[in-house]
């Protein structure tokens, strides 16, 4: 194996250690560009696996209590606005598409298109946070955040058991909040990436991998929301409550 030449260097590996292969080239510890890119991608996925574990534990708690308190959680979930959540779902979907196209443009080294598309992702992320802000403040005004000040008014929760509803809103804030933090972190990273593209930093203009890795992170943020949206905003009506469904729209 040691006799393998380094094709990425063109003229074999003579003087490979003296030459500095900057961004876009193959660093001397790799056999070729493919292996180099592969290790970046696998490294990023290793990080994403820890993120799956992070969110996975919360989804486990969610599944447990959703099973135990399905009726009360259904009644509490009716307080969430599925239209706002739906707009945000579509919003993140579009941002994900923008990001995928930005990575494609980075592969083609089309700086202008990359900047425009990343700008589009930033706008989508900002809209997402603004909608979340309105959703959260609405809940705060009605004392629907968990804690000793949690509302005593069962009527606004359609008669749900207040303790179980509190559990619902606790997980709602924990999971969508953690997701929101990821959106903000994503905005910071994409902002930095845009800055590098703007300054024509060869690290990003000559090598598409940094853009690809930021893209992987952003798609993961979208991925989490794909599950959060149906689980929190679109709960089906439990059988025991189906009788009340007639008349349409419930409360």
């Amino acid at each position, binding site marked *: 194996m040691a006799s393998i030449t380094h094709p990425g260097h063109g003229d074999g590996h003579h003087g490979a250690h003296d030459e500095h292969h900057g961004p876009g080239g193959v660093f001397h510890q790799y056999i070729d*560009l493919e292996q180099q890119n592969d290790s970046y991608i696998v490294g990023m996925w290793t990080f994403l696996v820890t993120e799956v574990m992070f969110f996975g534990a919360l989804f486990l708690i969610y599944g447990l209590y959703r099973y135990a308190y399905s009726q009360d959680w259904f009644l509490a979930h009716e307080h969430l606005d599925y239209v706002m959540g739906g707009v945000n779902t579509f919003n993140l979907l579009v941002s994900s598409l923008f990001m995928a*196209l930005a990575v494609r443009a980075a592969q083609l080294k089309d700086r202008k298109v990359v900047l425009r598309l990343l700008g589009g992702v930033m706008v989508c992320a900002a809209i997402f946070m603004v909608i979340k802000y309105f959703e959260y403040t609405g809940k705060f005004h009605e004392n629907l955040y968990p804690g000793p000040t949690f509302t005593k008014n069962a009527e606004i929760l359609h008669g749900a058991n207040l303790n179980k509803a509190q559990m619902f809103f606790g997980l709602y804030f924990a999971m969508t909040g953690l997701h929101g933090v990821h959106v903000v972190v994503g905005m910071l990273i994409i902002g930095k990436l845009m800055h590098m593209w703007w300054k024509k930093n060869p690290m990003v203009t000559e090598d598409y991998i940094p853009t690809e890795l930021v893209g992987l992170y952003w798609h993961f943020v979208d991925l989490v929301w794909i599950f959060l949206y149906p689980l929190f905003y679109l709960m089906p009506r439990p059988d025991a409550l189906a009788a009340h469904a007639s008349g349409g729209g419930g409360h």
Partner: protein
Amino acid sequence: MASSPLQAAAHAHGDHGHHVQPLSFYFKTGAVLTVGMILTIAAYKYNWGGTYIIANVIALTIAFVKAGFVVWNFMHVKFASTLGKMFAFLGFLWLPVLMVILVDYGFRNHEQSPSFQLNGEETAFPRQLKSKDHQPNSPNSVNTQNRTPYGRAF
């Protein structure tokens, strides 16, 4: 397994070690995701009338299909090396393994040791004391009526 230096060189010089997909590839994926989102909302608005499990299965199935498209096409796992694919797959395989922990809650009723709150109404998964010295009218007694296989009816 390893490509010949000639091939690798062609790769490195030719398309820079990656394959640029046509624009339609991404737009089609985006369209599939949009349709999935609309289907999820439509399934939510549709009155399944006493088929809670089916409604849940449908919602989650659509979510998993959407997630698959994002991971496979947008996250480029489709074009990743075997090692890359393996990392992505194992990362998500871990989730169902974690969910198996939930099985534990099915057996809580049969646990011999008392829990901190045996029959509290606010306990999600109350435990049932089955020891011989179980006193029917003691504070620890458990109402065996209205019980589901997974604990007290909620």
